[in-house]
């Protein structure tokens, strides 16, 4: 199978690949990278909420971009409605371009509303204690904002709060895994409740306005 043949059938493949396509992917780096990129975009697009419909300018931008690339040509007909005519070899660019612009638009929208995305992490196996991984514990946006606030109000306490947040986040992660592995386990639920209480306390003390 050649690259042209593979890319021609790519839009119809979905998540499954035939034997021929599999072998082509193994031998062709370019097509393999293309499939990986499309899967990444598809995965990221799923986290977008359905209510966040892109504004009309997004669709207009897609049309402008496709016209500039020469992928859209005005149809020579007497119809008042223009139709899209695409070369079959470049048909896969349409969903790719659309998805890229949707993701980009949604990111711009979310940043504008002050809702930072937190990095998704691969959870460690259930029951594994992560208390010793404090050095690499990733902080969410809210935690970083809290540390910034503490740093402004009480610079000498910033390190203490950071260490405690890491400790509490490790507690929450272990407790969540324990609770997920057995939702009926009352003790696991108790761990989770305690972990969240700890986090709430840290936030409350950091933001306590009674202390100057």
């Amino acid at each position, binding site marked *: 199978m050649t690259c042209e043949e593979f890319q021609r059938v790519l839009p119809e493949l979905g998540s499954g690949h035939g034997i021929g396509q599999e072998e082509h992917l193994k031998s062709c780096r370019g097509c393999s990278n293309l499939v990986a990129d499309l899967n990444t975009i598809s995965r990221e697009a799923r986290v977008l909420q359905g209510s966040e419909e892109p504004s009309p300018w997004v669709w207009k931008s897609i049309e402008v971009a496709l016209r500039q690339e020469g992928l859209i040509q005005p149809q020579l007909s007497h119809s008042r409605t223009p139709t899209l005519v695409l070369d079959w070899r470049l048909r896969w660019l349409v969903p790719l371009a659309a998805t890229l612009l949707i993701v980009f638009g949604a990111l711009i929208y979310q940043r504008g509303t002050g809702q930072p995305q937190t990095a998704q992490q691969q959870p460690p196996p259930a029951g594994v204690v992560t208390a010793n991984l404090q050095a690499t514990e990733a902080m969410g946006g809210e935690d970083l904002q809290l540390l910034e606030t503490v740093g402004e109000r009480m610079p000498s306490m910033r390190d203490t709060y950071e260490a405690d947040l890491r400790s509490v986040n490790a507690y929450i992660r272990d*407790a969540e895994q324990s609770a997920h592995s057995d939702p009926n386990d009352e003790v696991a639920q108790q761990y989770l409740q305690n972990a969240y209480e700890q986090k709430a306390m840290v936030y409350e003390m950091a933001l306590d306005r009674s202390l100057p």
Partner: protein
Amino acid sequence: MQRATSYVVMLIVVSAAFAAAQTTHQELHFKVGRRASVSIVNQYGAISVKPGPGKVVAVTAILYSGKVEVDQSKSRRRVAVFSHLLEGADAQTGRVDYEVLVPADASVTLHSTTGPLHVEKLHGDMMVEGSTASVDVRDVSAGHIHIKTLNGPVTVTNVSDGLVEITSVGGDVALNAVNGSLVHVNSSSGKIHYDGDFGDGGDYSLTTHSGDIEAIAPAYASIEVVARSVQGTVEKDFPLQPEHTSFVPRAGSAFAGTMGEAASSVKLLSFSGKIHLKKR
């Protein structure tokens, strides 16, 4: 050699006198009604609260420099005293030590970053909060004791008929002769040590994430106990009557059972710490 020693002694005396000259004392007195509410907020320095005579709140403040002042507010039943840091104040120059006498039934709220914080012989409610401050509460009864620290160690001694809730991220918690209808300790990495009777038919819950738990009880304790550690080990010095639980007790990582009449409920839970139920 003798002359050098004399010079050193003189230097120390002069320095002490100089330091003392920098501190100022301030006394405040407030008349209050029954069940008064007293609040002390002090970022740097000690707060000590004890019972005093009559319906009076007496505050003695020792200010360590001119970069801090003591402000106050008072309503009929509420007294608030707080340290106001001026520009350029730090942990040394902003330090104030408070000695407070309150009616024994007063409710007390203490906030401090560095502490230490000390409360004794009261029977009202108390809320004690310190970031790295050590907290020491002793000889109190019949009140709701609520203690929060980030890393400050907590010691609670001789509490009867109390409702005790302690939350600390990394501070060690020691409970000696603490009994009440509810005794809850929630720690993340701090150790918990309990030495008491688990009496009053109460609900005792000692939980940590990675800290160890050591509970010492007498042979006559009347408890229904559950102990579990996901990654750590559990040990007991008592033979327990088996009881039905929602989880399967596994030797070395969990046990459950009763002693005596099982009047009190005791939960010893740690995610990765060691748990030991010891016999006194």
